[in-house]
């Protein structure tokens, strides 16, 4: 916030989300063409990757490795906890429970982007290699989800799943951005900053407008699948944020880094995982997981969760150290 006073403290990008949500619920004609959605998400993914890659060169690999391993562990852990809850408390079919669990074990890039924007406007620092952890966290939950759905016995088309996961648009752009940023370094990237960095928040605003429209479309699914899904869609991220905070503390992350890791843990995938599950666990109903991840958890995290997770990280850091 600069000199002039604003009505509220809400980040304008959140207002774009609310605008999309309102337009969607009122069944307005507003609709982003899919080519625009593709362009916008492509720029965001590359930008996040680039930003991380630029900083990555400064980090010794020995410092990063334990974090990567820990985060892979977290990516296995979260769906393993979510699955029995969904199966026994929620009464979902095996495939559906596994698929939803995989969504919540993985991460949402949009939620991450909103968190970084929220932190940036408050000048809260966080470790620069977070995009790397974001990439790492995308994948373990998918594997676990497939195993939980199919069991070890049945033959899983691992090759197909692998290419679906690793060569999906999202991972290719994130990892590609990371590598480019890492190779080119801050000086090299300077010439493409106006597109990828200066426009970042404006493009994120357009993206969130579309996210609002998509979220509105998934509210319908919620009504059909009931109260448990809503409760899970709020309870699970709260629980995951605790786990994420614990991992952040164990890894010795800063307050900002801990809060980001908690946000990653709390966020639920709605791009990489649905695509992988559709091919690998086709008997799972995608409407269920998307209703929870998009209809409940995404708005919850974006509107309430991020400040909460930051408060949690500050509080635990104050309690535990200096």
């Amino acid at each position: 916030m600069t000199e002039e006073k604003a009505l509220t403290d809400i980040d304008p990008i959140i207002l774009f989300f609310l605008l999309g949500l309102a337009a969607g619920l009122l069944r307005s004609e507003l609709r982003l063409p899919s080519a625009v959605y593709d362009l916008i998400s492509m720029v965001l993914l590359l930008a996040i990757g680039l930003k991380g890659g630029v900083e990555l060169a400064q980090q010794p690999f020995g410092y990063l490795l334990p974090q990567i391993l820990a985060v892979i562990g977290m990516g296995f852990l979260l769906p393993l906890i979510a699955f029995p809850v969904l199966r026994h408390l929620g009464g979902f079919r095996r495939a559906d429970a596994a698929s939803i669990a995989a969504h919540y074990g993985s991460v949402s890039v949009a939620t991450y982007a909103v968190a970084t924007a929220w932190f940036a406007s408050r000048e809260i620092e966080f470790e620069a290699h977070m995009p790397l952890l974001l990439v790492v966290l995308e994948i373990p939950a998918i594997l676990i989800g497939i195993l939980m759905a199919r069991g070890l016995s049945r033959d899983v088309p691992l090759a197909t799943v692998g290419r679906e996961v690793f060569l999906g648009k999202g991972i290719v752009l994130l990892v590609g951005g990371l590598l480019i940023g890492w190779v080119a370094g801050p000086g090299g990237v300077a010439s493409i900053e106006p597109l990828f960095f200066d426009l970042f928040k404006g493009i994120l605003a357009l993206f969130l407008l579309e996210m609002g429209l998509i979220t509105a479309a998934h509210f319908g699914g919620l009504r059909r699948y009931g109260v448990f899904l809503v409760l899970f869609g709020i309870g699970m991220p709260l629980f995951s944020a605790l786990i994420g905070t614990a991992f952040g503390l164990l890894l010795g992350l800063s307050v900002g880094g801990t809060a980001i890791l908690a946000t990653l843990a709390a966020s639920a995938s709605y791009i990489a995982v649905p695509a992988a599950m559709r091919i690998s666990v086709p008997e799972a109903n995608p409407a269920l997981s998307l209703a929870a991840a998009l209809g409940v958890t995404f708005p919850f995290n974006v509107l309430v969760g991020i400040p909460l997770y930051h408060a949690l990280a500050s509080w635990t850091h104050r309690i535990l150290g200096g």
Partner: protein
Amino acid sequence: MWTHKRKVLTIITESALERVLLEDIERLGAHGYTVSDVRGKGHRGVRTSAWDTNANIRVEVVCDAETAAAIASRLKDQYYENYAIIQYIADVEVLRPERF
């Protein structure tokens, strides 16, 4: 002129299936296919988003009756249970029979 009878099989299904579906179609002997991006509504609800997970494709295959039957029944076995998909077949006439 229009003396060569063939079939055109039209498949409308989820975009997510594009790659595997086209592999199936080729494996079963079709000499070509045409794909377009569409939106729609059916038993599995509205599929009309900007968004891959919720978008549809329409695939058209011109071929002889046996190939059409082979593709259709294969897709039925493979995808009808779990995916948004419809198929229908119609009679057409073509100019170069050796092509289809």
